[in-house]
């Protein structure tokens, strides 16, 4: 039986001091070195650990596959994923992917999961350092019809059918059991990523990395890229964080009304 673990990683600019182009409202990436999104390093490590934990199950062929969608130079972070222990890596790259929002990106990633086949666990970092949305994981799960469990801080146990996870909620942890396949997003506290070994670094250097575009993934060009995106970036601005928690407790209808009011009067406050 085949059991594949797909790890979704993203190339991000290394600096946290990225400037915003005031004309186009997009991130100015020029000059910044590209790295693996730091949260995704924990996803890779967990993907490798899960494979190692399954090694004792007889006749289970396990493989950890790192996947990224991005321009051809994203190959660099895929090689780094192999040096960190991934068995294989696939680059999802096509001109028509350019400008994809999280939904369009999720369509590409879910098509990749289908093409990889036998994917039992998809692991994402909790969010990207540049976009910060944390939406891709849940959207991939939705498109594939898999359950999604976010903010996982521990994989308590797993076998080839189910997984037991510890999930961080706002002020508590939940212990959740899920049937596979599943999509999870992981927190930094889940593990302590290893330092790449020399063998894996050599393997990474020589690995052949496949590139899949719309043809290989059999997706409609209108469903990806800017055309396939449900959102547009209208404006980017520096946000002052002002966190206020308001507890609402009354009957369900009143709660909904209250939340509705809060959301639609937010700008005025």
């Amino acid at each position: 039986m085949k059991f594949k673990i797909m790890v979704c990683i993203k190339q991000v600019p290394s600096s946290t001091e990225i400037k915003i182009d005031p004309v186009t409202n997009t991130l100015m990436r020029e000059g910044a070195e590209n790295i693996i999104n730091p949260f995704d390093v924990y996803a890779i490590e967990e993907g490798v650990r899960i494979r190692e934990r399954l090694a004792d199950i007889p006749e289970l062929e396990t493989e950890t596959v790192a996947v990224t969608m991005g321009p051809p130079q994203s190959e660099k972070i895929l090689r780094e994923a192999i040096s960190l222990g991934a068995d294989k890596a696939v680059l999802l790259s096509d001109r028509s992917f350019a400008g994809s929002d999280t939904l369009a990106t999720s369509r590409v990633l879910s098509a990749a999961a289908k093409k990889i086949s036998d994917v039992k666990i998809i692991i994402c970092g909790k969010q990207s350092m540049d976009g910060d949305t944390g939406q891709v994981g849940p959207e991939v799960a939705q498109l594939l019809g898999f359950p999604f469990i976010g903010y996982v801080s521990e994989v308590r146990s797993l076998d080839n059918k189910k997984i037991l996870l510890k999930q961080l909620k706002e002020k508590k942890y939940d212990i959740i059991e899920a049937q596979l396949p599943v999509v999870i997003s992981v927190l930094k506290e889940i593990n302590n990523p290893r330092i790449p070994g020399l063998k894996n670094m050599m393997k990474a250097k020589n690995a052949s990395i496949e590139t899949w575009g719309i043809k290989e993934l059999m997706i409609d060009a209108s469903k990806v890229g800017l055309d396939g995106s449900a959102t547009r970036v209208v404006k980017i601005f520096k946000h002052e964080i002002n966190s206020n928690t308001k507890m609402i407790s009354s009957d369900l209808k009143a709660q909904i009304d209250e939340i509705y009011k809060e959301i639609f009067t937010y700008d005025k406050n």
Partner: protein
Amino acid sequence: MSYFYTEEQEMIIDICNRIVREKINPVRSQLDEDEIFPTEILSEIGRSDLFRLFIPEKWDGMGTGILEVCIATEILSKGCLGVATSYAASGLGFLPILISGSDEQKDRYLPSLASGGKIAAFGLTEADAGSDAGSIKTKAKLEGSNYILNGTKQWITNGGEADIYSVFAVTDESKGIRGASAFIVEKDFEGFSFGKKEKKLGIRASATRELVFENCIVPKENLIGKEGMGFIIAMKTLDKSRPAVGAQAVGVAQAALEEALCYSKIRKQFGQAISSFQAIQHMLAEMATNTEAARQLVYHAAKAVDSELKESSRLSAMAKFFASDVAMKVTTDAVQILGGYGYMRDYPVEKMMRDAKITQIYEGTNQIQKNVIALDLIKNGF
């Protein structure tokens, strides 16, 4: 600075730098202060395939040379010489198996040592046999299918922590130096125990203990090579391992130099950075020049060992003695440049100075190295 490293060597440097930055530096002062053996760091070093450097691919190694071992050791020593010593001492422990062991012994022991799953130690020194290694008293007597070992080894690095020990014992007292033999002793063999952990001036993260053999039963097949080859095996091992002691010295010297340079640019006296004073500048220049010269000699000796050149024994001894003297001088000067701060445990240079001292002593004192060099000169010339 470019050292014309190969791509593989660059990768080794990259890995070691990460281990130093992420795993060693944050805990080194605590390991020193509390004398904690770095079990977790050695596991990380094992996972990073650095023990594989010593070992041919046939036994799950990477099949690289002593030069690569030296490069790894140099970088790890920049972080903590105690950790680097524990790493290098495992290599020293399994070199006798690698050099003179049978294929069966190699199959049995090398793969787990290559992965770092097990670590090794080298047991030669005794209370009355240090520089005079030929006068060891530990005895091994063949009884049926086992050798029975009796005696005590002293100051054994990784003692009590290692799983596999290369132990040297006398099998024929009438033959003097040619009556010694080498054995592979596993930690849990009957009659094998350990003395107390020694308190040391430096390299306090490393473990140093006595090995005590009281009718210790060692299977006959654990004899390395043949009876009487012990001393030759020990000398061949030390010829190969000496450049790595030189590399430890270069690493700790480089680390002290970097600390001193950094401090001299920040520390202000008389209204200016102390790096603007010629007295400090000349110290830094000498420290850098000597460290660089030591590094070149270590690399050259390592290449000579890897190429099995006839002068490799002489060059190894030169590299060990020169680099360790440099390390002592450079670390002492670094403490001087940092002044009162350098003497305090809040800064890492006093530890580097304490650590550096051992490189002049272990794996053959520098005086013994000079004997090796002089005898080789007189016997073989140039």
